[in-house]
Each structure stands twice: as structure tokens, then as C-alpha cells.
């Protein structure tokens, strides 16, 4: 399988083979982090810009380190401290940065479709590091990579995404990716955060975690945002934790080899109690180290199809019919 995409905008566009290619490439990159010189020259002389219009520490740092390990020059540009607060448009900001000779733009933005828009405007490659409630492909890839490490056979695996699925780009990307690899995806949470309409994406919807607890192989516990409660989507954080949090009691009932994932940052005592977050089923820190390998793979594959070489693939906008 030859990777020929100039951009990585989401997992909805990717084929099963392309997702596997990304995961296998990441596998090859894991070893780099174990060397005495943790650096390979693959992207030497290339420039990667992290263009983040939303606060982010781990994703940005992860991309920054991934770029550095590939010998690229990495610049960080954060929206809040920049010209956007002076009224510049997204396109203008990006075009100005690209004019400095950039090869790959990694973008995070609160608007769904922002990465797609930049891919239409810019000559260079674009990687989506999270756009609104649309997609966060590298997060889903690192989740899937982590699952695959422990459970190589994804076909038929039952993965529950628990929490605010409705507003979550992490959930959306996971659903596309996991389904393409043959996993069975459950969306679990209160009906305000997990509307029944989600079943149109092919997921099993449940509003009762205890009902599905025993059949699930992997729990991906989404972070609950306090704003959602303020908007009245669920009554109290305490009630949410009681109904949808993983605690020691529930862990006694889950499958013996069930895994617990969390994209971070964890609200301890809400999505997970500390004993679960730090327990033997938790692979949360694996997710973080795998994230580095996955982002190296994304930069490496996309970079090779950049302005110098690859063909430009027409990609679909979010919401467009295929």
C-alpha cells in the first residue's frame, strides 16, 4: 500500500488500508524513542508549524516532539497570542505563515472544517489536530494503536466510547477508525450527550453503562467538560460520575482483560476513580507514548507527499455527501 495523501484531515476519508498503513508506520517509529540518539533525519530541512487556535498542551507538545525526532524545524503559533485576536482571518493567518516557507501545518481550531478549509487554501500539507466537534484523527489513531498493541485482532472487538460523544471529535474519529477496522463500537452516556441518532453512524447506543459493562472489551472514557453541566446537559458532576464513571466496583464486573483508555486530561473521580486510572487495566500512559509514534508517522507520510512530490487528492468537506 502506497500512501499518497498530502493531508491528514480525518479518518472518515481514509480507507481501512490507509489506516493500517499509518498504524504500521507508527510501529516502525516506536523504536526511535529507545535509541541513545532519539532522532532520525527523515524530515531534515522541513518546517512544521503548530497552528493552535485552542489551548492544548499534550497534542501540541506531542507534535512538537514528533517533528523534532524527525529532524524537522518546528514552530509553535498559538491563536490567542496572535494576530487573530487583532481581527485577522484564519486563511490570512495561515497564508502568512505559509509564506515563510512551511511544509506542514498542524492545525487545531474550534470550528469544524477548519483543517479542510486550510487544505484548500494552502499549498503545503495540513494535519488536523482537532477541529470543533468534527475529527481529531491522530488521537483516534493513537487510541486504536494502543488497543491493537494489547488486542491485535480488532475484528469484532467491542469498544465503548463513554461520555460526551455528541460534542466529541475524539469520539467521531474513533468511530470511523474502529468501524473500518471491524470493531463494534458502543456509545454510552446520558441521552443529552449520546443522542439516539448516533445509531445512524452504525454504533450501538446505550444510556446505561451497567447494562453493557460485562460485554465490553475496551472502554474509552471521554473527558467531561464542566461547561456541559452548566448548560444543563446533565444535572450534576456527581451524578454523572455515579452513573457513567468507572470505579473499583464496576471494574470487578468487567471482562478480565478489558482495557481502559482516556484521552486526557482526566477528571479524577469523575470519568475514572484514581484506582482505575492508575490500575492494571489502564493504558492511559501508553496512549501518550504511542501518540508520539503515531504523530511521527503522520508527519512522515504526509510530508513525503508534500509540495515536492505527491499528488493532491481531492478530499471531502465535513458533511458533504460521498
Amino acid at each position: 500500500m502506497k500512501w499518497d495523501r498530502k493531508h491528514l484531515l480525518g479518518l472518515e476519508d481514509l480507507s481501512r488500508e490507509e489506516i493500517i498503513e499509518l498504524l504500521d508506520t507508527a510501529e516502525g517509529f516506536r523504536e526511535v524513542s529507545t535509541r541513545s540518539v532519539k532522532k532520525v533525519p527523515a524530515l531534515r530541512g522541513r518546517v512544521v508549524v503548530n497552528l493552535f487556535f485552542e489551548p492544548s498542551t499534550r497534542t501540541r507538545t506531542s507534535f512538537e516532539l514528533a517533528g523534532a525526532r524527525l529532524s524537522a524545524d518546528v514552530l509553535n503559533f498559538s491563536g490567542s497570542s496572535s494576530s487573530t485576536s487583532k481581527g485577522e482571518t484564519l486563511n490570512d493567518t495561515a497564508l502568512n505563515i505559509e509564506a515563510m516557507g512551511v511544509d506542514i501545518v498542524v492545525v487545531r481550531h474550534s470550528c469544524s472544517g477548519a483543517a479542510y478549509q486550510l487544505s484548500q487554501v494552502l499549498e503545503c500539507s495540513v494535519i488536523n489536530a482537532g477541529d470543533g466537534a468534527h475529527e481529531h484523527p491522530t488521537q483516534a489513531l493513537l487510541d486504536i494503536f494502543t488497543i491493537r498493541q494489547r488486542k491485535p485482532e480488532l475484528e469484532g472487538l467491542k469498544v465503548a466510547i463513554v461520555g460526551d460523544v455528541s460534542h466529541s471529535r475524539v469520539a467521531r474519529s474513533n468511530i470511523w477508525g474502529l468501524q473500518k477496522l471491524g470493531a463494534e463500537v458502543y456509545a454510552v452516556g446520558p441521552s443529552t450527550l449520546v443522542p439516539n441518532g448516533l445509531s445512524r453512524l452504525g454504533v450501538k447506543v446505550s444510556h446505561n453503562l451497567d447494562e453493557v459493562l460485562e460485554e465490553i472489551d475496551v472502554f474509552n472514557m471521554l473527558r467531561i467538560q464542566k461547561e456541559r453541566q452548566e448548560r444543563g446537559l446533565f444535572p450534576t458532576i456527581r451524578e454523572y460520575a455515579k452513573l457513567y464513571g468507572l470505579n473499583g466496583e464496576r471494574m470487578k464486573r468487567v471482562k478480565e482483560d478489558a482495557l481502559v483508555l482516556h484521552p486526557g486530561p482526566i477528571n479524577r473521580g469523575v470519568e475514572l476513580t484514581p484506582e482505575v486510572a492508575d490500575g492494571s487495566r489502564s493504558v492511559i500512559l501508553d496512549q501518550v507514548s504511542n501518540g508520539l509514534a503515531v504523530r511521527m508517522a503522520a508527519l512522515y507520510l504526509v510530508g513525503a507527499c508534500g509540495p515536492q512530490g505527491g499528488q493532491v487528492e481531492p478530499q471531502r468537506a465535513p458533511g458533504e455527501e460521498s
Partner: protein
Amino acid sequence: MTPDDFGGIYQRWLAGIRQTTDTLENWALVGIKRRGAVLARRLLEDLVGGGGARGPGPAYGELDISLYRDDYHLQTGAPAVLGTEISFAVEGKSIVLVDDVLYTGRTVRAALDLVLDFGRPRRIWLAVLVDRGNRELPIEANFTGEFFETGRNDRVQVRLKEMDDDYDGVDLTSFVETGA
């Protein structure tokens, strides 16, 4: 080339390598993926299994040079990343680097850079089954199975049963330019 020819070339190559490695103690065999690694595995078997080696025997590793290529920017798509496996300390080791064909020398340049990223070996030798000339970098092998005079348009392929080839051998294909 008949399988006997291949066997002869390999045996001569092996004997030459053994002369040096028999005098080594802290050493390693390192193959360049993929066919170099297959040959390195055969050498490991033959050098150690033959009873000639003293001490604990060599360490073994495999290199994937795809991240060290100098033509990344010229390609339309990234070469597959197969992964490098060096699980021993390179520092102070004597290393025999193994590949199937030596051509421009660019692969070996990449492999040397890659090995040096793991540490500072005492010395590196280069062993290639086939040298087909046409070097673009000042790199030569210490152990060569056979030299073939070839042109830039010729193709030289080492066939190995481990790689799902039907036979062990060296295929030489000459492409005559038709001017078309």
C-alpha cells in the same frame, strides 16, 4: 546463474568474513533490511554454527534505513518504515554490516549514519554478496562475494528463498536502450 554458482559465491564470501570474525570477541552482525538482513541471518547461522567462533558469539541486529535516505524529498510517497532492531550496546562493538548488493553506496551511507545514532562502535566492516560498481559515494566493501560489471540501466537482484523467491541466486537483467 545456477544454484551451485550462488553456493560457491556465498561460501567464498563466508570464508573471507570468517577469517576476520574468528579473531573478534565483542562483535555484532548487522543486516540491512530486507535482503541484507536475510543474508546476515544465514551468516550468523554459518559463522556460529560452524564452531569457529569463540566466546559468547556475536550480537545480532537489523537496520531499516528508510528514515535515513537522502532522496525523501524526491519521492512521491514515503518508503515503508519496517523498523530497526538493535537491542545491544553499539558502544565499543566491532560491527560487520551486511547487505546483498553494493551499488551507488547511498544505502551504506544511510546505514552508517543509522548505526552511529545508536552509539560509537569500535569499527565497522562492510560485507556485500554482490558488488555491481557504479558508485556515487566513496564507499567500498571489506568482503565481497562477487563483482559484476554492470551499466546504469542494468538490474541486479539477489534472490533468496526466505524472501519467497523460488531459488537462491543472482539475476542480472540488461536493459538495452532502444532510444524509443
